[in-house]
């Protein structure tokens, strides 16, 4: 914070500003395998999905799962600038941004954020196989994701994938199916992986898997994992994520049909 060059385009933080330091609250160590919000291990938090919030965009979607809230807008397809080299398939540009108030400690990096490019490329990777971009040469599709409240960056990817796919669908981009994301964490106290972990669960996990799949086709577009996981447990996590994705898919489909009916 201190020593950052003054940015003349904004009001700057006063020098030597530091985040609040809190007295440690009386910690109640929980060694039980039960989850904090008393969900079953394979139970995901209710998903609220709504399209059409950004009126000027071709398509937009707002998703809330638990405390994660993010909004996604799609602009395009629009022509690439003439100076750009020829592309036979449309280019998908993904940009993920965090709101400064999204993670508790003020998160303000005027330039490039170190976490966002990773999320952008994971999102890109998850969505690309579902889109039919051959029919859009010399075009680009801009996808902007803005995370308003973040409950652990990994569950943001899963929610982000679902919202982005719904936004692309409501923008009329041709696709083979909706992409839905789900993640699982391996906690030291629980034998089975817990799905849709909250931030505190993700932070205390020994391993983490996140999955993006197209339930309509039964194909997986992206799996990423962190930590060491024995192979049978990994397979189990992938299977339970994929089955839960079917439920989330019906929520997403519902949101889309409601928006088209309106």
């Amino acid at each position: 914070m201190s020593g950052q060059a003054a940015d003349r385009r904004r009001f700057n933080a006063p020098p030597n500003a530091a985040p609040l330091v809190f007295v440690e609250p009386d910690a109640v160590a929980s060694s039980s395998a039960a989850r904090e919000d008393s969900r079953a291990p394979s139970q995901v938090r209710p998903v609220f999905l709504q399209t059409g919030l950004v009126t000027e965009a071709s398509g937009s979607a707002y998703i809330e799962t638990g405390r994660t809230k993010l909004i996604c807008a799609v602009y395009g397809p629009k022509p690439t600038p003439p100076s750009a080299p020829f592309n036979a398939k449309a280019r998908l540009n993904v940009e993920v941004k965090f709101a400064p108030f999204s993670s508790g400690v003020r998160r303000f990096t005027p330039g490039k954020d170190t976490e966002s490019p990773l999320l952008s490329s994971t999102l890109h990777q998850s969505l690309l196989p579902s889109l039919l971009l051959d029919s859009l040469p010399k075009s680009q599709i801009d996808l902007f994701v803005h995370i308003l409240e973040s409950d652990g960056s990994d569950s943001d990817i899963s929610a982000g994938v679902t919202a982005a796919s719904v936004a692309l669908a409501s923008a009329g981009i041709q696709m083979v199916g909706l992409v839905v994301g789900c993640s699982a964490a391996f906690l030291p106290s629980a034998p089975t992986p817990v799905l849709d972990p909250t931030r505190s669960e993700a932070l205390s996990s020994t391993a983490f898997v996140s999955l993006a799949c197209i339930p309509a086709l039964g194909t997986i577009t992206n799996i990423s994992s962190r930590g060491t996981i024995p192979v049978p447990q990994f397979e189990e996590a992938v299977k339970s994520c994929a089955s839960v994705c079917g439920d989330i898919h019906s929520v997403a489909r519902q949101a889309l049909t409601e928006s088209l009916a309106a």
Partner: protein
Amino acid sequence: MTTTSAQPIAGPSTAPSSSLTPALFRRLHPRPYLEKFLAEGVRPDGRPVGASAKEGVWRDASVNLGSISTAPASALVRLGNTTVVCGITLEIAPPDITFPNQGFLVPNVDLPPLCSPLFKQGAPADESQVLATRLRDVLLASTVLPLSSLLIEPSKAAFVVYLDIVCLNYDGGVLDAAVLACVGALRQLVLPEATWDPDTLSTVCHPISSQHPGKPITLGPLPICVSFGIFNSHLLPDTTLFESDLCTSLVSVALSSASKGPLFNIYQAGAPLSSAGGEAGGREQLKACIALARGRARELKAMLEE
């Protein structure tokens, strides 16, 4: 585009082709489109226009407080289609040497490319810098947040209140929505109990709980900002983006929401306000703006307080 009907518009013989759908007509000939509506005494979104219009002149406003749980206080404001989120974050910094008994207020307005096709990725647009400056001017002029109430220890530690505004949908009246969001969030803000420890030269805070309830801030007079546009001598309160792009003058009035409270800021851009009445006509228009703004400020204050 919100219009769904495909009825072609029959235009006068001098006007361009009469076989256009409303959406296309709006896109190709925005000025005649707006003029046709105003000739009937309505605006494109159905609101009445004219001196006799009293009801329904303003867009629907709604405020949703405290939705972001990672922020100590937050507000989501919708003004018609314009949607703005304000999140407050707190930090602690040593006060400025010249003002040892004051904290800091740092507003920041972010207009991401998400909210409108007008904004591109990369450096913040001029618009966001202008908005941030005007927001700061309104907030400081109104003394809504007395900076002395942010003090923890004179010359040693004070709170820094960051007001981060993110626009989610850009449809005119963003400053109005931003001021309303800041005011809504500030009303919710409770400063945690903070004690300066002279031994470690640092501040320690207690998380808000029943034993340490913290300190809500006593706010000064709440500012409300209201924007107007002037188009062909019609006064259009609370313009949408489409309307404000066509208006010749734009006026913003920031005043206290208390009845007979002071004016904080008047901003006028574009052509001078004089109409057929000359300079007096311009002054009359400004008085009309201020009177309308007072009514709106009362409404919005009541909405915030319920």
